Structure formats: C-alpha cells, structure tokens
C-alpha cells in the first residue's frame, strides 16, 4: 500500500461513527428533496421562469390599433383590385389611411382617415436629395401648386402601360444570364408587361412581374399542356409565396 492510501485510510478511520451515520441520513434527505423537486415543480417554472411566460402572454394579448390590408379588401374589394395593378400595389391600406383595427370591428362609427392634402403625398413624393435615385419625386413648390394631388392622380392606381420589343440593350446582364438558362426560349414580354414609356423614363414606368402562382403554374403545374418543363404540385409546394420569391426566374435552379 502506498503512503497516500495509508494516510487516507487513517483519515477515514478517524471520523467518528456518529458523523458517518449522520452523513448517510443527510444524503438520503438531500436525495429526497431533489426527487420531490423534480416531480413537484411545474414545468413552466423549470423551463424559463414563470414571469417570462406571463410576459409573453400579456404581450400576445395586447390589442394593436393596426389591422391588415387583407382585412380591408374583404369589404373594399373594388379599391383592392384597382390598387393591384398600379405602382401602389405593395402599399398597405393603412400606410395612408392610418390604423384601421377599430374601423374593421365597427365600420359605421369609426371611419379611418383619408388624407387629401398635398402635404400628405409629399411626405413620400417631395424631392429629397437623400432618397434613392428613380423614386418618383416632385418639387411641391412648382408642381401644380395649391392643386390637390388626387385631382389628377388616382391614389390607388397612378400608372399607364404598353409593350416594347427589345430589352437587352439595357438589361444585358439579365439577357446574358437567361441565355444559358432553361428559360432561354421565353420572350421578356411572356412574363413582364412593359409600360409604353418605360424606354423614355425607365425608372418611372417599371415593367410588371408575375403576380400569381398560377402564372408559373401554366407551364409548371402538374397536368399542364406544355411539354418539357419540370412539374411541381402547386398545392403543396412553396406555401403561400410567389414562385419568383424563391426561384430566380431568369436562371431557375432545379431543386
């Protein structure tokens, strides 16, 4: 036996008998408490603290004053279809009309705001040097002063349309990418509707993008008449998103 082991043995022997027995009792007490804790403490407390789940509950139950454009279009479907084709298509109703949750619950007594002043449109459309190039801006002082914007511009749909032929003169990058893609045989205008004045004022009159899943589905849905393109089950594939939100249409990757 080594020296260390001998000294250890001496140490253990020196501990009085009653201490040894007491320590066993204490050990079982501690084990019992731990066991009881594991069984009795509710999972909420063990997870992240009960106050956290309470905070989350109060946050969820909070009522906001804003609703959603989808809710608006349930009644105002005329404005919704008007807005769909124009430049303001991605604008939420409540961007201009203000919070509308109350109006959705009680349409008669709580009408939302409908800004008609020049000042309101110029919040976005007045010239500002810091705004990105191409964003439509006017100088409110010289652009038909004192006349209300909405007397000339329908705020739900401010835009004209017609189709040009060639695109690659400006969009070389896209046309070269498309040249080596499975979509090579498609004309640009198959998918994009191009406004007449897109050539003269390219940024002010932007071409459209496909707005529905059915558009891509014309070739890619199961049961389509077109021969060749890969098929997907439109009902299960891609949830609610438009096809081009995941697949780059000028160079669609097979996944």
């Amino acid at each position, binding site marked *: 036996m080594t020296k260390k082991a001998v000294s250890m043995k001496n140490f253990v022997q020196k501990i009085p008998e009653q201490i040894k027995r007491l320590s066993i009792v204490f050990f079982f007490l501690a*084990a019992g408490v*731990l*066991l009881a804790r*594991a*069984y009795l403490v509710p*999972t909420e407390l*063990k*997870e*992240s*603290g009960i*106050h*956290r789940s*309470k*905070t*989350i509950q*109060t*946050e*969820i*139950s*909070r*009522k*906001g*004053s*804003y609703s*959603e*454009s989808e809710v608006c279009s349930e009644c105002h479907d005329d404005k919704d279809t008007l807005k769909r084709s124009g430049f*303001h298509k*991605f*604008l*939420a109703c*409540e*961007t201009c009309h*203000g*919070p509308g949750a109350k109006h959705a619950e009680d349409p008669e007594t709580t009408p939302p705001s409908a800004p008609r002043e020049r000042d309101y449109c110029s*919040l*976005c459309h*007045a010239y*500002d*040097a*810091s*705004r*990105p190039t191409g*964003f439509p801006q006017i100088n409110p002082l010289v652009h038909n002063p004192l006349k209300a914007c909405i007397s000339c511009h329908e705020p739900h749909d401010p835009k004209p349309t017609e189709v040009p032929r060639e695109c690659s003169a400006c969009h070389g990058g896209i046309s070269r990418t498309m040249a080596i893609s499975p979509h090579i045989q498609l004309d640009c205008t198959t998918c994009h509707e191009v406004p007449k004045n897109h050539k003269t004022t390219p940024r002010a009159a932007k071409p459209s993008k496909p707005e529905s899943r059915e558009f891509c589905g014309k070739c890619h849905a199961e049961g389509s008449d077109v021969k060749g393109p890969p098929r997907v089950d439109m009902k299960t594939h*891609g*949830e609610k*998103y438009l096809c081009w*939100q*995941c697949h*780059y249409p000028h160079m669609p990757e097979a996944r």
Partner: protein
Amino acid sequence: MDRRSLLKKLFFSIPLLVKGDLFSSSEEGNPKTQKTKSKYGMAVQVEKCIGCARCVEACKIENNVPKEHSYFRTWIERYIVKKDEEITVQMVDRGAKEYAVPSVEKDILRSFFVPKLCNHCSNPPCAQVCPVGATFLTEEGVVLVDDNRCIGCGYCIHACPYGARYLHPETKTADKCTFCYHRLKSNKHPVCVMVCPTQARVFGNLNSPASPLVRVKRMKNIHVLKPYLNTRPKVFYTDLDGEVR
C-alpha cells in the same frame, strides 16, 4: 443479496433516477418547444428607404410610444457624407415642425436614410446586464421586457450598443421594439414592415427557406450593425454604407 450489496445498488441508482426524470421533463414535457420553431428576423433594404417615417409614426400609434421627440422603438437616421468626408447624422422626424429637409448642398458627396430598431441580438447585452432578469430572449428570438419585473434602473439602456431602448415616462420601465409580438401570433407582420411604402423592411422566419427574409439574405449583400461586438443581431442590412455605425 445481502444487505450491504442491496444498499450499495440503491445508493448508485439514486442519481440515475433523478437525472433521468429531469431530462425527460425538460425535453418532452413542454409542448411549446415542439410547436414553435420559428426564429424571427428582419432585413432592412437601405437602398429602398425613402425616409418618409411612416414606420416611425405607425410604430408609435401601435405600441403606445410617447409622441414626443426622442422616444422611439424604431427611428430613421439621415446620413450626410460631405466631400471632406465629414459625416453628419440627423434624426428624421417629419411630424416635428422645426424639422427641415436639408436643401441640396454642393459639398455633399452622398446622403441616404438608415432605418434603425432593436436588433434582437441572439447574444443580447441588455439581457446580460439586467440585475433583475426582466429582459430575456424568447424561443422565437425576440428580446422582450417584463414590465412587472423591470425596476427602471436604465442599465440596459446604456448597455444597448444600438441605442434601441428608452425609459417609458409613464410606466417608468425600459421599453423597446418587440417585433410587434402581439401581431406575430396571428401571422401578421410588424406594423413598420406593413406600412413601409417601398418594402424597405422585410420580415420573416429565419428557419423557413421559403420566407422572403431568407431570399433577401441569399440574394443581397448583407451586413449587420457593429458585428465586432459579437451580439449576433437578427436585423440584417443590405448594401449598407461603410460609414453607418
């Protein structure tokens, strides 16, 4: 089996019992962890922001933020870089009467808007410093404040490297962006995202490959604010100017 070996076996089986029970309850017992696997984040497309401050206004209405200047859950900064490389940062406040849009100056090299909000860090400094544990990270990656627990000491407000917190003058507690947590459960976007007229803000689930946010992260040049602090923000900026702090 004699008494000694029985006791011995009992003795060694105790830790197994306790451990096994603890693990099973924490992993399987909570149905919440199994249901929600979404991790929310936001992308801010700086090149699309027109600085109209619709988001700021909508956020103040939706979340009962005081109307006064200097209380913000989200705000917009205007960066002006002059030709001599001097940089000025202004707070955009279109509601204020004294706010004037700067006229075109010849010595300006470039200027642009940067929307800011809580970055919902995966490693949040504000939660680390809170002495009472009132600030925490939810399973969805949103940083929340417990109003009842917060003592309003303001430590988190100083600790936030993005200046995203303020002391609410009425409740006297720290307040901040919650990604409009009350809207998320009904699958609505935060109001700032909804009202943005140019879709400069993109909101989504970082764990879903089909979400628009992941698409932006895939297609654009992405940067986060102050990456050297290792806070791992979940607010991503596209094509961010190097001068933005």
